């Protein structure tokens, strides 16, 4: 069942057409990877879905209804949660405080017992490996921070969760942990949009790959049936390019 679908989304910044006539569908329990070169419009697309930018034209349908996403709060209210690349965590606050930042239980006399209980529930749900929720986030590894950021986005019971480069700057083990997390989100019936540069990660967890090139759709592939080379060709826009020439020479891309 399609949760979120975009039709004909366009956005220009001055003379630059950042996005032109984009279409995108995300179903519940589906991981859609959005790939593309630098400047392909991935970030702009994420920002439109997160309510940071408004599209100039096009239709956004969420759970069968036409919707507008004018503000981040509106996105949140609809059930679209975004985890930005820089995670936006407060290092001086502990895990519980970060998870509930801005949506604390009982504002005038914080109920930290209820918040801690709920924090553990969320982290268990993600099978997250965080030894204690009472340590400052500064004490956590990159993968653990990503987990906290994702857990926080789950607080509002979203239907769609957008992960912006969740594995960038992570080590091998931590990347695997985050990929497990993405699979768990899918098992929980969420639609997941994952922005990634890493073809291995895309092939590992995504169901569908949407390629953007210079602000336009440049192919939608079923991950099971597409090769890495085909995706790269769609990203770069040609089969004859630096990457494929290297591949022809037998150098791994």
């Amino acid at each position: 069942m399609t949760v979120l679908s975009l039709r004909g989304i366009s956005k220009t910044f001055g003379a630059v057409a950042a996005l032109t006539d984009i279409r995108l569908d995300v179903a519940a329990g589906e991981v859609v990877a959005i790939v593309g070169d630098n400047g392909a419009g991935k970030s702009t697309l994420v920002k439109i879905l997160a309510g940071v930018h408004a599209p100039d034209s096009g239709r956004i349908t969420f759970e069968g209804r036409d919707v507008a996403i004018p503000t981040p709060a509106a996105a949140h209210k609809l059930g679209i949660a975004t985890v930005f690349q820089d995670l936006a965590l407060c290092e001086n606050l502990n895990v519980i405080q970060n998870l509930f930042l801005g949506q604390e239980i009982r504002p005038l006399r914080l109920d930290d017992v209820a918040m801690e209980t709920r924090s553990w529930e969320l982290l268990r749900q993600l099978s997250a490996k965080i030894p204690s929720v009472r340590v400052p986030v500064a004490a956590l590894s990159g993968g653990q921070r990503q987990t906290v950021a994702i857990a926080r986005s789950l607080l509002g019971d979203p239907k769609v969760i957008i992960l912006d480069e969740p594995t960038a700057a992570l080590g091998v083990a931590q990347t695997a942990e985050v990929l497990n997390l993405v699979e768990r989100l899918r098992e929980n019936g969420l639609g997941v949009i994952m922005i990634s540069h890493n073809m291995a990660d895309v092939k590992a967890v995504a169901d569908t790959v949407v390629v953007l090139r210079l602000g336009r759709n440049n192919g939608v592939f079923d991950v099971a049936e597409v090769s890495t080379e085909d995706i790269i060709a769609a990203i770069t826009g040609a089969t004859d390019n630096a990457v494929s020439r290297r591949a022809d020479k037998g150098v791994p891309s």
Partner: protein
Amino acid sequence: MTVTTDRQDERLHHRAGLSGAVTDVVERARGGDLGVIPVVVGLVVIWTVLQVLNPIFLSSANLVNLTLESAAVGIIALGVVCVLLVGQIDLSVGSVSGLSGAVLAVLFVSEGLPVWLAIAASVLLGAVIGWLYGQLFNRFGVPSFVITLAGLLGFLGLQLYVLGAKGSINLPFDSGLVNFAQLDFVPAWLSYTFAVVAAVWLFAGGFLHARQRRRAGLSARSVTALAVRSAALLAVLAFVVWYLGQTRGVGWMFVFFVGLVLIMHYLLSRTKWGRAVYAVGGNVEAARRAGINVRAVYTSVFVLCSAFAAVGGILAAARLAAANQSSGGGDVNLNAIAAAVIGGTSLFGGRGTAFGALLGVIVIQSISSGLTLLNLDSSIRFVVTGVVLLLAVVVDSVSRRSRTSHGRA
């Protein structure tokens, strides 16, 4: 034995009961999470040295005086703590306190208004000044350093203007305000009652919290640890009350100051607003994205800081029974900021407590009072205060480094 929800990870060390609580504190200090340890150690060192140099220093009479002297600057420091927590600074607290004292004196003495109205007007003026800072900061993005530096000069000028040609206004000695600041002491029985109430409150609060945690399946402090903590607090408070009671006792003004510290502690640690303050100090962008109204948080701390500065200025004027051109001048500004920093408030934001203002101001006033007792020149007092401030900042930086290496930054 069933394992509580928050203790299931096998990598965690299991500590229970009293010894566990003690081990936790030691571990945390080793990791650079020093809390109030440096300032307490510093206080012990300073008191020992000053006592050796002059045996009157730790006498009951002098300590009573010290508590009274602490209140005004301490309240100003409390406001500075709030501003530092969001990573900003207010350099004008001295001028604002002086202006507030002057306005009080003019309204109360020269204009003959009732004292409560004069106080309310002065505090309101402080709040308006803070609001103005907040607007300048939020709307124009001027660094708070510069805004308040301008305030430092501007409000000093306003203070001189308000005081007029004479430059000094005496407050009548028989007024309630001067009485409050100079002569009002808590009766002994009530002081002891306060001490007992505080200890019982601490125990009851801890006990209820622990019970709630156990019911929710989380680990909790043992009753023994809670009882020991409360008994220790009771012993300390009872001793303080007894010792100060040897002469004049505990001043109401000091109680007022401690009351404000407790209120601020509650607001900072137990409310959504307090969380927002720490979050803004830690990572503004993250706070904004979490839906916190960052501008409102900035405005609220500037208002609070200037209002506290005004309250401090009123108490300082009441203690002196006069407002003059040098009220709030000289070292008031730097003492207040130094007290906040010495009390463990980080200059980089996001770290510090309301109790830091209390401890910090006692350190500052101890130095000031001890060196005055030694009949030393104010030149030496400035140098010593400067060195202590520097030490406090060095301790902050070193412990930050240690926190980073122990993963507690």
